[in-house]
Structures are given as C-alpha cells and as structure tokens.
C-alpha cells in the first residue's frame, strides 16, 4: 500500500521549479522528488505521487488541500510548471491542407498554433463538456467547457466532436 500523506506530516519545499524536497515529521528527508498526478484528467488536486529520480514512489498526497499552506503552494506551483495543458479559451482559425489541420487558438498560456492529423483520434470529448486534444506532436490541450466558447469557436470545433 502506498504511503499516504494526510496533511501536516510533511514539509515540502521547492527545488529547481519542477521538483520538491520533502521532510517528514519522522525526520526522513527526500530530495528532488517529482510530482505525478495519479488522475491527471479526472482529479487535479487529489492523489499526487512523489517519485524519486529512479521513479520509486516515496509517498502519495491524498489531497493537496489538506497540506500545510506553504507546502500546498509549493505543490501547486510545481504542478503548474510540470503539467502543461494549455486551456483553450477561443479558436481563432482552422485551415486544412492535404488532410493536415492547422488550428490557431487562444489559451491561458498565450496564442498557439498546432497541427492535427486525425480528428477522430486526436479529439476526445468528455461527458462534463470538457474536450481533450492531443496534437501531432503529442502536446495536450484542454477546452474546459466547450459550451461556453464563443460562436465562432463553436462553429469551428463542434463539427469535429
């Protein structure tokens, strides 16, 4: 069974932006741990594994909201750095040439252009209105709620869902 972190028994500090150092109340110390979401699609704040550089799981945070505020902030910052899933807020244009679609979209990380080769496999609509997109380079994007997009964006994306 994994070692679960319930709340204040660990102090987490940032290490090189994407890693954390962990100090348990037992005195154990671990350095350069990577944060891995166990449920990167369905549970963004729950069950976050701490892995060492060998890929061994040190512990699992049940819910980051139960951590001490400073540790929580560190975890949130690291996750933000580690997981890059730009949230698409608007589709600017879509063009197709020889069955390769170029999408230009506005995201929370800025404007980006990505390539999609097969809409059927690249776009996955979820039941809660979210849409997950994986481009030709395996980069990921998310539309938080397809229903609240503007009219032009909907016109572009809805036929592909």
């Amino acid at each position: 069974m994994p070692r679960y972190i319930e709340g204040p028994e660990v102090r987490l500090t940032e290490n090189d932006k994407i890693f954390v150092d962990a100090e348990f109340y037992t005195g154990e110390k671990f350095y350069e741990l990577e944060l891995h979401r166990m449920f990167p699609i369905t549970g963004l704040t729950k069950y976050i594994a701490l892995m060492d550089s060998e890929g061994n799981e040190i512990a699992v945070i049940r819910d980051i909201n139960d951590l001490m505020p400073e540790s929580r902030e560190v975890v949130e910052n690291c996750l933000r750095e580690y997981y890059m899933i730009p949230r698409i807020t608007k589709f600017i244009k879509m063009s197709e040439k020889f069955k390769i679609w170029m999408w230009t979209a506005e995201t929370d990380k800025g404007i980006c252009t990505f390539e999609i080769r097969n809409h059927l496999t690249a776009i996955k609509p979820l039941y809660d209105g979210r849409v997950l997109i994986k481009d030709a380079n395996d980069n990921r994007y998310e539309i938080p709620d397809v229903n609240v997009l503007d009219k032009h964006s909907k016109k572009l994306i809805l036929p592909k869902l």
Partner: protein
Amino acid sequence: MKLKVITNKPIPKQFEDSFNQLIKNDDALFIVVGDLNLKGRYAESMMVFTADKIIAFDECYDNGSFSVDYADIETAQVKRLYGNAVFKVKFKTGKKKMLLRFSYAAAEVADAAAVFVNALNEGKDLTEELETVKSVYHKQRCFCPKCGRKLPNPEAECINCSGKGKLISKFGKYVIPEKKSLFICMLLSVVATGLSLVPPYITKIMVDDVIPGRDSAMLIKVLAILLGIYILQYVMNGFRSYRLRLAGDRITLNLKKDIYEKAQYLPLSFYDKISTGSVINRVNSDASVIQAFIMKITQEAVVQAFTLVGLVIIMFGMSWKLALFSLIPVPVVVVAGRLFGKIIGPKYMRLWRRSASISTVLANSIPGVRVIKAFTNEKETINKFARYCDEWYKEDKKVAVPAAVFPSLITFLVTCGSIVVWFLGGNMVINGSEEISLGLLVSFVSYASMFYTPINFFANMSDTYQNTLASAEKILDIIDAEPEHNFGEGNTLQRMDGKIEFKNVNFAFDRSKKVLSNINLTIEPGDIVGIVGTTGSGKSTLINLLMRYYDDYDGEILIDGENIKNIDMKYYRDSIGYVQQEPLMFRDTIFNNIAFGSGRVHVEQVIHAAEVANAHGFISKLPDAYDTMLGERGVGLSGGERQRVSIARAILKNPSILIFDEATAAVDSETEHLIQGAIERLISGRTTLMIAHRLSTLRKANKIVVVDKGEIIECGTPEELLKMKGKYYKLVEIQSMGEQLQKKKAEENFE
C-alpha cells in the same frame, strides 16, 4: 547572417540581431528553436550550439540570452514533463540550470543536442557527433514536399501523392470492373424512363380526341399500346434490378476486401491509436454506404438527369409559359439544398463518431464476456452500452430534424408549383385560350409532377453526399494510411545465420516518453540470450522492434550484417519463430491453428511439430484430436496447452531465430517443465531470445541481458553477471530465496 546553420525552425526574428552580434566569432553548428519561454508561456526561444558553448535566447533572461561553456557543464539533459520538456544542464559546481523550455515538437532535436554536449565532454569527435545531430534534424524534415505527409525516410515515395489522390478516382477503381453491367442497366433505365414519358401523352390523346370523339376502336388501340408500354417497362426494370444488385454486391465485396487487406498491412502503431470497433465499422457499414452512393451516382443520377432534360423539352414544347412557371421553385430548391448540406454535414460526422463508439464497446465487451461474468459486471456493462446508445440517439435526433424537415419542405414547394400550374392553365382553358386544351393541361400537370421527382432527387443528393463523404473519409483513413514499409521487397539473405545487432537504438511510442535509450547489443549465431528486467523495463519493446512491428526508431538493427529494414518483410518474419505469453488461437481446428502461417504442410509435419512441442500427447487424447474445433481465443484448451500449440506453430516454420516472450509465465511448474522440454529441443542451433521472469527458464542461456528503464544495464554470461553482483545477482538471490521457501513449504505440507 549564417544561412547554413542546421535548425528545426527559422531563427526567430526577435533574436536575429543578438544572434548576429553574439555568434560573430563562433561558428554556430546547429540551433534548437523552442516555442515556450522559461515561464511556460507561448513565446519564441532558442539555443545555439557552437563548438565550445551553448547560447540560450529567451525573453526571460535579463539580457535576453545566457551563455554556457561546455567545459563548465557536467551533464546536459532533456527532462520530459507533461506536455512540455526542458533542456537542463548540471554544472561542475553542482548547480543546475534550465536553459530552454519547449513543447514536444522540439523534444527530439533537443535530445540530440543533449547527447551532443555530453559526447563532446566525454572527448568524442565533434564531426562524428555533428553527423548524428544532422541525421536527427534530417529525419524531422522527412515530409513529402507536395502534401506535407510524414515519410519514413527522405527518399521514400509518398503514397498519398503517388496515387491518383482524388476521392473519385480512388473509388472509381471499384466501378470500372462493373462498367459493362452498369452501362446495360443505365441503358435499360433510360429506355424505361423514356417509356414512362409516353403515358401522360396518351392521356392527352384520350382526353382531347378519343373520349370526346367516342371512338371505341381507337380506345382499345390506345389502351393496348399503354399496356404494352407498361409490360415492357416493368420487365426491363426487373432485369435491371437483378443486374444492378449483383454489380452493387461485387463493388461492396471488393471494397471490403481491400479495406480488410489494407488493415492487415497497417503497422501496429495504427492500432495503438485507433479502436478495433472503429475499424470493424469501416469494413462493414461504411463500405455499404459508399456502394449505395456509387449506385446512386452511376444509375439514378443519370436516369434522373435524362428524365429532367426530356421533361423540360416536352414541357417547353407544350407550353413555354406554363413550363417557365413550373421552374419557379427550382432555384429555391437548389439554394435550400446547399444550406441543408452545410447544416447536416457536421451532424452526420458526429453521428458517425457515436456509432463507432458503440461498435468499440461491443468489440471490447463481447470477447471479454468471461471477465465480465467473473466480476459480475453485467449490469455496468449493460449500462455503459445503453449510455453510448443514448448518446447516439441524442445525436441522431439532431440529424433527424433537418433530415425530415428538408424533404417535406421541398415537397411542399413542389406542390405549390403544381397549384400555380393548375391555376394558370385552368384559367387559360376556362377562358378558351387556343394555346392550351384540357387534355394538354391534364397531361402537362402529369409531366410537371414527374418533373419534380428529379428535382427532389438532386435536392436530397446533398444529404446522401454528406453521409457518404463522412464514410469515405473514414475508409480513406485506412486505405491512405501508411502501411508497414517493405523497403527490401524481394531482398532475401542466402542463409540466415542469426547474428543480431542493435546499434544505438532509441525508441519512443510517442514523444512524451522514451521507451528504449541507446541500445547496443550483439548476439552471435546460436546464442541463447535471456532478457530479464522488471515489468515495463522495455524487454517486449526490444522484441517488438526486432519483429519490425515498429519501424520508427533511431539507430539500426542488423541481422547477419544486413539492416532489417532492407530485408523482405515476409521472408524476414518467416525466419523468426515468435511464441508469446498469451498465444492467440483462432476459431479453427487444432491442426489449422498449428499450420497457421506455414502454407501447405503435410499432416505428419504438423504431428511432428506437435510432438516436439510436447503437445501431441494431449491432442491425441481429445475426442476429435487434431480436428478439435477451438472456440474463440482458444476456448477448450488450458493455458499450458495453448502455449504448447503455439510452440508447435513456431516449430513448423523452422525458423532461424526464436523468440519466447515469457512463454512459461502463466503455467504451473509441471506444465512449465513440459514446455521447457519442448523449448530445449527446439532451440538447438538456433539464435534464441527468451524474455523471462522466472530465471529457471533461462538455465540454458549463455548470455543474459538486463534491461532497466529502457536501457541495457548489464550484459554478459550468467557467471560474469553473478560475479558483478549487480541487478542480475539480486534477481537470482531473490528468486532462489523464494524457491527455497516454496520448497520448504511444499515439504512441510507433504509431511
């Protein structure tokens, strides 16, 4: 400005000046252009690699750039995060620094850059290392200049452009063999349609001449002609339907066969990304949709066009005024048709996705019915299926509205047209116009109502066309997909000794995670090699590459000095006997399951193979022996029995190389002993690769390869590795402890 620098993208404009300023005295060797800044926002960034340093450009740096000498770097590394990656260096002082951040689009070139820096620091030759970097950049640019499609190598011919390319020509090849049948049918249709234009004219003669003239003899004559026309018309239609059905069936059959054939030659990476349900759907339903459309185009469309032209001539001949009024709804119908297509096209696409999802659930759950029952998960499975069906229905309802309303709207417009004709023509007859008689009006209305049938047909065409386009796209997805490349077609080796070499092999299923890194391995002919490692360490992937299931790797794999990509695929795979952990049995007899893939073989060869595989004993005890029909996935045989049948299958091929992928992992000790016996008889004199968890399986191995996290960490004879006291030593210790414990327990129970 240096134009010859190797780069994955043009140098960002914002860095051009500082690039020219900073790189003046140095020669930039290559550049990695990124698409994120260090804070993870979309922005341009880049790293320039010279002979002795890296200069990173990013808007987040104080001066816009940062320079590092290779001499100060201990290691360079690309760390893949989720959806992005970073290029990091560790300084000799122990400090670390992130130099560049980028999406996966630049990950491969950045990987090459990290290898380059580390190699130079190890004192390797710059020119040689630069060549490796160049080849990675070159691979990135392997696109067809015409269509942008990714090619397996720069010289490869693009299958998309070498073909005719167009939708019509692609499906046209299925129509051509049927051209004779289709032409006869079309001719018959045209004649039948021509005949159908006669009865309204006869109505005119009857109303205007025969009935008012009370000419009974003429009436009989006219009716006899009418009867003759009807008989001829229906006989011709019957014959035409028969020919058409057969021609249509042949078109569908050929199309289905082609899709299936293509699906067989698609690489495994295609199936990694697409559900089997979706492929089944394409073979079954989409092929029929295409067939229906081909029929519609080659037959009905021609006939309807002919009818339309004939009617226009007749109607204008009768009364040009009435004919003009009849044409009023035509533009409305055409505009409405185009609008309808725009509305309904995307809806049909969505509907298709829903029905493909249903097929996927079916393809997943029905073969897994044993597991479902074992876990009493019937209710959940039913609910899941129901949910998918409901989703389909929800989407279908959205299609149903325009699909139902549009034809009704057209019919309404058409009816309005006939009311206008009655109104105008009726008035003309009432007012005693010489231009038009009562018979002519009645006959004109008949023609006018016939006139709207082709109009209706062409208006509805867009609906059918949109539906077909969605299906055609799905089919072309398979037909146009890149097949497994058989670059060495016809190139066989005179004799395969079985020397296997992996040279600098790197592989990733997608860009998010490397599965194999820097694999270098030489296996001599006749070697028995044990591949060990933890689950997920990359053992099976190594075999997948050797089997040529995936071709998109860096580096080379050689057999007897020849790159496996240059050897004829069939010859190559025929030379390898592959026994998997969970062998698949086909719904066929045991005999055919053993003989699978070996062509025509003599009965005794099969029996001999079964004997060597320790399978003959249990097979001959079965009531139907070799004729025993196996159920789906080998139902009727135990795991060990299935395994022995699959070993017999491998024996029959008489391969030069043998691969056992955890062949004894799922069987008890006694069966393992039987299988082990079979394997030992089989491997003599053949190069053998054995993936095994149980080290007892590797008793005969003269070489052990330990794979961990995609890398070979130990390689040598078992004795050498035991002396090294590394990972293999640990595995042996753990397992022998376990075995001793088991033995002790067994003894205790026995006592």
